């Protein structure tokens, strides 16, 4: 793999009480190569994302982004450097409407702090409506997010991350909760948008079909460790992976 290393995790370790959620995790994320993370429940996938995005500080080990040591930097610092995240449990502003959620993201990205201009009139509004259209949510732009079903909330959550125009995007189970009839279609659109904007994606996924289709590489997690890593074709047909991971989640 010759492309540039965007983010590198070295020797990450973290434990919660007796649970080892990261145990000497070493992994590199290469620019332009979408990485899928698979593994059973409780394997430490979300924990890995938490460490890489600054939500948790590892007890040992380091994270570098663009060659800079970013271990323990607050999420907002990493966001400003170009690392965005969509969550396993959608993290939205539940007393705002869908479009307002996106406008807040756009205002944050464009650093519009003027305290006297209504957010509804910021120039990024058109762009945000377009983004909503892309994730098939244009028709619910004016609905309060608290009324939406889980699947739509996941999509809005991803749209919020996209609104930040990141270089590196972490997505934690982007299709869980999304109707299976729409999964591929929606992810197709997102993948296309990511490719166009040259965003590298790291995504946690339980659906092997999705992994095969969208990942350039796969990493298999178990008990806080990276067991295997390689191209999807090889990894997904590895007997151990089939037995320990795929067999369990399908």
């Amino acid at each position, binding site marked *: 793999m010759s492309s540039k290393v965007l983010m590198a995790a070295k020797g990450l370790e973290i434990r919660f009480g007796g649970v080892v959620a990261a145990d000497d995790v070493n992994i590199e994320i290469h620019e332009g190569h979408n990485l899928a993370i698979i593994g059973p429940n409780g394997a430490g996938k*979300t924990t890995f994302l*938490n460490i890489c995005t600054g*939500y*948790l500080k590892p007890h040992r080990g380091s994270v570098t982004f663009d060659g800079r040591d970013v271990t323990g930097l607050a999420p907002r610092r990493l966001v400003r450097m170009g690392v965005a995240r969509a*969550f*396993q449990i959608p993290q939205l502003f539940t007393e705002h409407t869908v479009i307002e959620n996106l406008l807040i993201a756009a205002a944050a990205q464009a650093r519009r702090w003027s305290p006297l201009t209504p957010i509804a009139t910021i120039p990024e509004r058109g762009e945000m409506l377009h983004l909503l259209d892309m994730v098939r949510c244009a028709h619910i732009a004016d609905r309060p997010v608290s009324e939406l079903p889980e699947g739509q909330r996941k999509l809005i959550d991803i749209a919020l991350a996209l609104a930040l125009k990141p270089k590196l995007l972490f997505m934690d189970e982007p299709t869980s909760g999304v109707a299976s009839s729409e999964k591929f279609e929606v992810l197709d659109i997102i993948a296309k948008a990511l490719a166009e904007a040259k965003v590298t994606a790291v995504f946690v996924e339980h659906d092997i079909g999705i992994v095969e289709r969208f990942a350039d590489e796969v990493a298999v997690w178990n008990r806080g460790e990276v067991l295997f890593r390689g191209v999807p074709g090889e990894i997904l047909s590895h007997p151990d992976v089939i037995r320990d991971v795929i067999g369990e989640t399908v």
Partner: protein
Amino acid sequence: MNLQLFALAFFDGIAYAALVFLVAVGLTLIFGVLRVLNVAHGSFYAMGAYATASTVGAIVAAGYSPWLAFPMMIIASALIGGLIGGPVEKLLLRRIYDMEEVLQILVTFAVFMILEDVQRLVWGVQPYFESSALMVLGTVDVLGITYTAYQLILLPVVAILVLVGLRIFLRHTLSGKLILAVTEDREAATAIGVNVDRVYLVTFVVGASLAAFGGALASATTSVIPGMGADMIVLSFAVVATAGLGRIEGAAITALLIGLGRSFAVYLAPELDVLVPYLIMLAVLLVRPEGLFGMAHTRKI
């Protein structure tokens, strides 16, 4: 500061810490179980003090033995906890457990406002001073200082008994174990058939009675005046926040820290004595927002 002054400050601090602990432990116990920080907690303290001071005053004035002050303290605090604390939980707090946090805070604040006036209606605004209990126990001489046995011995002993008693109650009795179960995991406790409503009620009554008991004991050492409830809620909050919300043993250690800090300030920097508890709290919270003995927990995302 010579040895005698030092000892004096030390004794003051211990006595004061014992009282503050009784109030704070009730506050932190209630928080641990109900997850509501009861702003009206200081009112139970004040009412315990008023009820004790007024009844003991009447008893002594009628010529009965001042030793009756001690059973009276216990009766008064149990009554305040049961007759006022009970209905507050059952009729009011029960409606707010699912509300937004800011509304919960406002509801207990409203209860506080109401109870402040209840005190004024029942006991008026003139100070009560009733120190019979303090007098009958006499004094002791330590290191050349004469100090009241009530403050030097009784208060610390009571505080320790409450601490140990609470530990035994929580760890070794059925009701106590139920309370701990609800503290640790409300859903799981409900799922295995614990009557959570009852646990809440019992906890609240016990916590409120402890605050009233603190007030009852304090009434022998100080004038009972309007506004003492407001001062005490802030002070006991300082103690439980410094310790970490819900930490019972921690509250004991922190009460000592703050009690001693304050009493030494009285001798060393008298202008600052009211500030010291808060300065300690601010310093601790700056370094450890979850308190000395609290555990930080990250939200699952």
